[in-house]
């Protein structure tokens, strides 16, 4: 994929959408309008957007996790659908049975997660396997954290994918913390991508705040998968800039660490780069930001007018009736 200025503008736009969606969810949480866990993706914009952008949204498939709102946007998801799902309003594909980014939208080739970390990685592998059996290559991209990487199913799925040379790409989002637990208490290898060799797959560790680097690395992974060379893991190093979820004051994170990572803000740094390279002017960026924000607010207003689903939905669809 040749990095054109048009692509750069799109990367920025998707990152801005992710950030504004995040800001919106934080506001809604404080206003008591968002319930359940509100998991900020602040700091993860470049990883989500750069990775998903490497895929072909018409052919490939996305299995995002809880901090990948940017990936949903890359796959063409609209703000209204996301808001309706997050706030469990009528019109949600999940009918109020579940919320947040857990929905599936087969037409947009997005299959959301369950809460159980790691559980969707074998499922993503199997989705690609179905097409592999039909002689078609469908790349599945999915995500896991520095904590979730320690779940047993991750091991099984990666080994399975490597053995069967499945076109699976696992983005490991190493944002330094798993809830309150730091890397040092989650794993003992140097980089999580060191494990790739043990599975017989490609893997590398990169700066997850650099959207173009994430895109480049993931594009190589997609090409490898399309050549039939199997899965890749890409460890993107970032920082979780807020608590695990909004109830968490993250006082256990050293302030210096947050200050250090604030200088690596993936969105602000990319804006500087784009302005410096004269791809967009500061004014154009301001306009884009304002437009993104006002679109977001409009979608929230529309969503908040919707009622919750009817209670009777709770009794339906435990099984698919033929």
């Amino acid at each position, binding site marked *: 994929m040749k990095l054109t200025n048009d692509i750069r503008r799109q990367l920025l736009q998707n990152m801005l959408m992710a950030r504004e969606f995040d800001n919106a969810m934080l506001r809604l949480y404080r206003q008591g309008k968002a319930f359940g866990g509100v998991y900020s993706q602040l700091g993860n914009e470049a990883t989500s957007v750069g990775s998903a952008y490497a895929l072909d949204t018409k052919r490939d498939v996305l299995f995002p996790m809880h901090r990948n709102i940017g990936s949903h946007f890359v796959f063409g998801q609209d703000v209204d659908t996301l808001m309706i799902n997050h706030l469990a309003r009528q019109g949600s594909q999940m009918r109020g049975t579940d919320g947040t980014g857990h929905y599936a939208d087969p037409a947009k080739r997005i299959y959301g997660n369950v809460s159980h970390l790691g559980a969707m990685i074998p499922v993503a592998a199997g*989705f690609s396997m179905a097409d592999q059996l039909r002689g078609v290559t469908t790349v599945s991209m999915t995500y896991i954290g520095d904590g979730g990487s320690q779940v047993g199913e991750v091991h099984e*799925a990666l080994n399975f994918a490597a053995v069967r040379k499945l076109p699976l790409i696992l983005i490991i989002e190493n944002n330094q913390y798993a809830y309150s637990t730091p890397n040092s208490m989650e794993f003992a290898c140097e980089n999580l991508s060191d494990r790739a060799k043990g599975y017989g797959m490609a893997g590398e560790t990169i700066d997850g705040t650099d959207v173009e680097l994430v895109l480049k690395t993931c594009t190589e992974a997609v090409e490898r998968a399309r050549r039939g060379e199997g899965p890749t893991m890409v460890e993107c190093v970032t920082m979780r800039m807020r608590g695990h979820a909004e109830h968490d004051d993250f006082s256990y994170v050293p302030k210096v660490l947050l200050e250090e990572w604030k200088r690596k803000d993936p969105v602000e740094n990319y804006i500087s780069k784009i302005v410096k390279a004269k791809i967009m002017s500061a004014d154009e960026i301001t306009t884009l930001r304002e437009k993104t924000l006002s679109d977001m607010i409009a979608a929230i207003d529309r969503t908040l007018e919707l009622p919750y689903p009817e209670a009777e939905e709770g009794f339906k669809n435990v099984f*698919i009736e033929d």
Partner: protein
Amino acid sequence: MAVLTYLEAIADGIRHEMQRDPSVFMIGEDIGVYGGAFKLTKGFLDEFGPQRVIDAPISEAAIVGASIGAALNGMRPVAEMQFMDFVTNGFNQIVTVAGTTAYRWGIPVPMVVRGPSGGGVGANPFHSRNSENWFVHATGVKVVCPAFPDDAKGLMISAIRDQNPVVFYEHKGLYRKIKGEVPEGEHVVPFGTVRVVREGTDVSVIAYGSAVHMALEAAIELEKSIGLSVEVVDIRTLVPFDEEGVLRSVRKTGRVVVAHEASLTGGFGGEIVARISDKAFTFLDAPVKRVAAFDSPTPFAPTLEKAVLPNADKVAEAIREVAAF
């Protein structure tokens, strides 16, 4: 009609579906070249090739999880657990992912997880378990426990065609011991209907899986010895459960024994008894008795295993008690 063993009938059902529908494939451990630990898939690799008879690493979560993913993408996987005991390692995938997908997404997960369960064959605590009721409580998962070859085939065909995840419990003790006539070709047994395998008027035994055979043996013995007329009802599928089919027999005899090989407490028998108590209390002439395994792992030594598991004598004893009340 051909006479097939229970094992051959299951294989016949799967083969029928694989011949009919190219989206059906099998995945499991040692099911290809080796033909499966019990040789159930013998010949499948030659007939269908390695794309449809997939030998997987020893990774039950990956086997079940990949099956779910394939099912979401238009396939109909049949995943083998080498022993049903090892479904514990794939439990999360069935319960957390497969069982919640219809409810949350409205998207079908047409998938079968199948394998040999049950004790009485001198295995050990890890190759003998009857864990079917775990999945009854999971919600969103269908649970099938055939007792006869014809049902095993017909229910397997239904399981593969179902739009929902199905856990299919094959009792390994019946694999080669039980033979019967099985219709050739298309033979569909729908879920959610009991089979009255023996008509009677004095006492009803409600059972499934291996306990159906214990009940039949007890019924024949009691008819011979004391002239008791025992009805045996095989519920065949736990989810969906044919409550009315059970109540019909209860209303007829008014005396009931519920039997299964799984351990007593928290077993499906408790659910059956609760439904009877709720819906047919006034028809009862005696308290309902349950026959089940002792609440322990299934032990290894034959003496212990025999003592802990139910058998025809224990079922007969319960029938006598209920009849004499």
